[in-house]
């Protein structure tokens, strides 16, 4: 008996709750989980999950951090009144002090103001790119893994092709094809960076998804659902996705931080985010040469980045645990 699922899940959608908002993955899963065995009143998984989440310290802490970061990204003025673009070279690389908590960067700009203002671009790049690759990768991987045969061969080989192209090369091409010049609005510059990172970034997600789908689709409950005449999309969305999504969530929450750092590399090469956009990545890559003399230049943007990544991973963990039917 190697089935990784509990028997009560073999019968799909025992009690569908009508009127639940469609479309969201959580909602879909909720319907299948449906009428739980713990309570007499039929309740959605989302409801259960939310109840659990509210009591989970991991969730509360990570959600609080993310809220603060989002507020910082949306309204940096709440956190600092200093102008991040008011710089005086005379202050270059001065360490933290009473007047500048985080010290000054190479150009003599206030590091605190720049770190606060950098949240927007960095978080946008990280979140948007991660969402993009998770979506594209999951769809491709799910179809490949579920259908197998020719579809799998085609999609997998396509994935291989994209995987083989060096990330840097792809990014340079995308960004060189759509160069940002003086006067390009910031959102366009950010959009291009997201695209450049995402174009080649989805392949690992696709492979991960495919591998778990191959594993999950052998499960009894999937066979049963198919036997009961469920359609492909229904099986994929309600039975396979919820049970196969864990590795993708794990990967996505970590890769989010990697994208923020990658953005730094692109900026460093002169093709990523560019002035006047401020980002942690730019600050981190600028700090590189001064690692020994002025560690504060790296420490603060680096710490913000780490905390962001940590918060997203913790959130991902908590949400996944709460929603995963198998963990109940």
């Amino acid at each position, binding site marked *: 008996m*190697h089935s990784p699922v509990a028997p009560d899940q073999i019968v799909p959608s025992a009690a569908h709750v009508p009127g639940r908002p469609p479309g969201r993955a959580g909602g879909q899963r909720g319907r299948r989980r449906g009428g739980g065995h713990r309570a007499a009143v039929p309740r959605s998984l989302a409801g259960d999950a939310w109840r659990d989440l509210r009591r989970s310290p991991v969730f509360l802490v990570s959600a609080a951090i993310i809220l603060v970061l989002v507020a910082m990204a949306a309204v940096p003025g709440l956190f600092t009144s200093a102008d991040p673009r008011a710089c005086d070279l005379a202050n270059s690389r001065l360490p933290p002090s009473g007047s500048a908590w985080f010290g000054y960067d190479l150009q003599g700009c206030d590091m605190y103001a720049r770190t606060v203002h950098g949240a927007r671009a960095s978080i946008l790049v990280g979140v948007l790119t991660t969402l993009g690759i998770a979506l594209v990768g999951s769809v491709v991987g799910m179809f490949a893994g579920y259908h197998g045969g020719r579809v799998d*061969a085609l999609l997998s080989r396509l994935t291989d*092709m994209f995987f*083989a192209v060096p990330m840097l090369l792809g990014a340079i091409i995308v960004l060189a094809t759509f160069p940002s010049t003086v006067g390009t609005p910031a959102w366009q510059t950010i959009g291009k960076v997201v695209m450049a990172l995402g174009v080649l970034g989805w392949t690992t997600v696709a492979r991960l998804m495919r591998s778990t789908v191959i594993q999950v689709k052998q499960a009894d409950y999937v066979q049963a659902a198919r036997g009961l005449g469920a359609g492909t999309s229904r099986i994929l969305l309600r039975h396979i996705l919820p049970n196969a999504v864990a590795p993708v969530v794990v990967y996505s929450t970590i890769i989010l931080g990697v994208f923020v750092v990658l953005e730094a590399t692109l900026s460093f090469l002169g093709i990523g985010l560019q002035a006047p956009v401020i980002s942690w990545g730019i600050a981190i890559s600028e700090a590189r040469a001064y690692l*020994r003399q002025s560690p504060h230049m790296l420490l603060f943007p680096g710490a913000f980045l780490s905390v962001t990544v940590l918060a997203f991973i913790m959130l991902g963990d908590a949400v996944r645990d709460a929603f995963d039917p198998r*963990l109940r």
Partner: protein
Amino acid sequence: MGRYVVQRLGQMVPVVIGTTFLIYALVWSLPGDPFAAKCGDRPCPQNYIDRMTAEYNLDDPLPLAYLQYMGNLLTGDFGQTFSGASIADELLQRYPTTLQLTVLAILVEVVIGVAAGVLAGTRRGGFLDNLVLVSTLVVVSIPVFVLGLLAQITFGVRLGWFPVTSDGTLFSLVLPAIVLGSLSLAFVARLVRANLVENLRTDYVRTAIAKGLTRQRVIGVHTLRNSLIPVVTFVGADFGGLLGGAVVVEGIFNIPGVGNMIFRGINAHEGATVTAAVTVLVLVFLIVNLLVDLLYAVIDPRIRHA
């Protein structure tokens, strides 16, 4: 099984053709004349530009240039870099080094990553779990150049435990491999943990425990095996990434590897160099991933390759 392998090998042909064309076209479409920068801040003699352009078929239409290139490739002629060195020689010199580095890095990430993941997964929510979470994350969120430089200064220059830069020996690749592997460590540890946690809740584990098996045996034999599929997938995919993506680490430790060759090729707009280097990379990557797919069946007997 045998048929499956043959089928997969057959599928490699279009992938290799597709990839090489993709790469060649991408490098081709890079803006800027590759020879414009050859003379620094002043323009080059027109004769020179004309000769180089003709020599590398850059003035032919893309499909024609690509066909010429592939034709040469099939006859074993990998072409020359702009500096006149043989690309084949350079590949032969760089690939072994890169392979050594990659395999060492994979060893680091698998051994430490799986161990950390098991520790964390079996003590979910406990101190060790959080320690693993935080320590692997700290590593992820430090940019690789910082990690590399710190490791080099600390263990190479100050303590003298390792060579500061690569001197061609396997030992000098150990420190770079640890740095390189540590980036993926977090992924492996988290993947193992996540799967382990799920699998520990399953009936067969409960059954096994009820049968009176020791916890170690349950984790080691039953659970871990079922938790390895995504890890193996990740490592397979990562293998490719490590092969080509080690530019930064290669630079820091002065390792003459493929990542650097590709990076320089892109910068110099050397289509032939980039394509040749990536093509070999793709081949290695495809074979490794074929092995990974075969491993699925070995790890999880429910998966069958028809």
